[in-house]
Every structure is written in C-alpha cells, then in structure tokens.
C-alpha cells in the first residue's frame, strides 16, 4: 500500500493479494491495441511533420515510418489507417473507464498537496509500489493527463484533417494553422508520458506482468 494514499482508499479496494486481478481484460486488451496504434500514429506523424516542420528540427527519418514514393504518401497512408484503430480503441477504453467507474475509482481524487508529497517521495526513491492496484497521486495525475492529451490529439487531429467540414471544432483550437501546433504539443505530451511510463514499467517489472496477465 503506497504510504500516502492508503487510508483514503482502503475501503473501496479489493484485497490486495497476488491473486487479485489488478487490470481487467478490457483494460489489458485496449492497452496493447493502443500500443500498436500509438506507435504507428506517432512515428508516421513524425514523418508527416518532417514534410513541413513547425520548428527548427525534423525527426530523423530512421525513427519514422512510411516509405512511400515520396516519403510522405506512405506516412499519410499509415497515419490515416491507424487513426481508426486509435480512435475506436480509445473510445471503447474511455467509455468503459467511465461506465465501469474505474476512472473515478482509480484516478480520482487528485489533490495538489498529495501530488507534491508523492512526487517528492518518488524522486527520493521512497514511494512504495507494494500495491499495484492503487495509484499514487503522481500516477493519477499522469494517467488522467495522458487521457486528456489523447482526447486533445484526436480533436486537434480531426481539425487538421477536416478544417472546412469541422471548422467549428477547428475554431476551438484557433483555426487550422494553430490546431497543427496543438496537435504537435499533444503528441509531445503523450511521448513525454511514454518515456516516464515505459521507464517505470521496466523498473517495476511486476507492473508489466500485471498488464499482460492481469495480476
């Protein structure tokens, strides 16, 4: 049980034993489908970015996908194919997360004071991962944050894809040209999350096992 969050949530938790299911099947299935979808979306998106960079750098082509005739057509084909996987899978995940109460149970509440405390503990290596079924405040913030970034990346992406048909949505992001930047920064937020997320999964291998076999 992580030290700071135990008392607040002990009541609504299943007994934390090695036999208890930490991640139900739908979480694991949507998680791994999302891994594939995200990989394709991000790496093809980088190649598309390279065709007309927003900033003074490009992504090395070696870490992008989509070798078409001109280097762009292939990336676009991948991006606009994987978007269906990403959106449909993401919609299922978010819907089930809300309907099942998992989001509310696992990700809320997030209190700033607890985030600060847990972040300090994490950085000094004193944050416990004994109970993988309970997220500490930093995890809650990051998991909720990446869901929000996922929603923003989709909505800004739709604005870039259909700036005439969905011009009202594009206007929310400041119009086509600004929506490109929003799309970029939402991607950057997701990639930053992934760096932390993958690093910690490697440092706490039990968490990886739980996402594969559920416990």
């Amino acid at each position, binding site marked *: 049980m992580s030290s700071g969050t135990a008392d607040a949530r002990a009541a609504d938790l299943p007994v934390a034993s090695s036999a208890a299911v930490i991640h139900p099947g739908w979480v694991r299935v949507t998680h791994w489908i999302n891994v594939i979808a995200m990989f394709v979306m991000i790496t093809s998106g980088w190649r598309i970015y390279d065709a007309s960079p927003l900033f003074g750098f490009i992504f090395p082509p070696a870490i992008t996908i989509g070798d078409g005739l001109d280097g762009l*057509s*292939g990336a*676009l084909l991948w991006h606009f194919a994987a978007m269906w996987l990403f959106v449909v899978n993401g919609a299922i995940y978010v819907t089930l997360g809300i309907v099942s109460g998992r989001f509310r149970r696992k990700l809320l509440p997030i209190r700033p004071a607890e985030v600060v405390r847990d972040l300090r503990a994490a950085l000094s290596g004193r944050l416990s991962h004994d109970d993988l079924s309970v997220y500490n405040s930093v995890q809650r913030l990051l998991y909720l944050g990446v869901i929000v970034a996922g929603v923003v990346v989709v909505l800004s992406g739709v604005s870039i894809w259909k*700036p*005439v*048909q969905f011009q009202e949505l594009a206007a929310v992001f400041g119009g086509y040209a600004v929506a490109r930047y929003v799309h970029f920064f939402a991607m950057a937020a997701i990639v930053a999350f992934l760096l932390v997320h993958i690093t910690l999964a490697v440092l706490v291998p039990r968490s990886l096992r739980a996402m594969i076999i559920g416990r």
Partner: protein
Amino acid sequence: MRKIRKAIPGVDTGLLIKDAAKLLPDPSRRLFLRAATSLGAITFLTGCDIVDQDTAGKALMAISRFNDRVQALLFNPNKLAPTYPESAITRPFPFNAYYYEDDAPEVEGETYMLEVGGLVENKKSWTLEELYALPQEKQITRHICIEGWSAIGSWTGTPLRDFLKRVGADLTAKYVWFQCAEGYSNTIDMPTALHPQSQMTFRFDNEILPRKYGFPMKIRIPTKLGFKNPKHVIGMHVTNQNLGGYWEDRGYNWFSGS
C-alpha cells in the same frame, strides 16, 4: 523555355521524375527512381503502382479507399470554407509544385484552348477571351497543402458549377477530370465540383494568374487539399470513371477533402 500548348508531348518525363526526386530524402529517392525506371511511363498512366506492391501497401490502399467514402459522406455541399479579409492574404504566396518554379509550364494565352469533353452537351473548346467574359467571383480562402503548411490567397474566376451547367454537363455523373498542360491531372467528385466555392480561376490577388500559379487557368477548390487544385488546366472531362491523378496515383488519398 519550351512552350506547351497541348498535353504531355514536349515534356521530358525523365527530367520530370529527376526533378521530383531531388526533393526526396536519399533512400526514398533511390526507391522512387528505381520504381520509376522499372515501370517507366506506365506509372504516369495507371492508378495502381508501387505502393500496391506488397500486402501492407494493399491493405493501406484499401483503407484509403474506405477513407474516400467516409470523406464523401462527411462532405456537406452547403458548408463553405472560411473566408478572410484582404489583410490576411499571405504575401508572398508560396510557390509549390513537383517541379521548380523556373520549370513551370509556359502556356500561350493567345492560342490557349480549354477542351471540354465527356458527358457534356456542348463539347466546344473555349478560348481565353471567351472564358474571361464569364461572370466572375472573388474568394479569399486558405490553401492547405498535404504537407501541412497553409497560406491564404485571393482567387478570382467563374464558379465551376455555373460553367458545368452552361456547357450542359451531366450533373449526375460521378467525376470531373482535369488535364494540365504539362501532364498533371486530377479527378474530383461531382459534389465537390458543384460546391459554390469551386472555381475556374483566372486571377490571383487581382492580377492575371501568373505562370507560377497556373496561367492561364487553375481550378481552385478550397474544400480540398492543394494538390487537388490543378494549375495550367487545358482539359475538363465529365465522366463516370475515376481517372485518378498525378499524386493520387502515387499513394495520396484520392478524396483529400478539407
């Protein structure tokens, strides 16, 4: 500079391919050139090509065709692209093509004829003088390139749908195909051709359309990406057959609506 009056003759396709390849990163350039050499002129004429050569490519193309249908459903014939004030116009407006600016086709205005064919009642060809006499409208809209960049420009010309009605086009036909002086081409869906902002453009920023922007006539379609806005148009055919297009045949999504 060579003068191009008719379609493909006079264009060195080899040079064209080399020019396009100059814009590519090394590995893709090699791939492109190899493919181009092996398939030769066929790549210019067929709708299926290099992207189709493997299973993943075929699956991706199938999804791209699915995306065409989704976009056709999303397309609202009454939804107008946002318009902007004069002050928003991007100056200088970027030149963009698969050739360098110096290599832009040079079409003679005096001898220019727009060929109108396919499912139309009146197949007469139009001189530039006759085209200029048509009622004209101006639009200031955003041109969006498939690469991501965009620019706001001012285009003046006659609404394409008025012209199609004038020549007695079969408006129930599925497509309109455009042919360009140097061999570029596009096929668009009829609903987009009939969109109120789809325009046969003769002027850019109130001046006669300069060579770099498609003299003497381009097709301005603010509901589609830039590459679906053909320049130096010399032929227009109403058809029920999707004849593809230059970039569409190279893997770009066909509908490419905005």
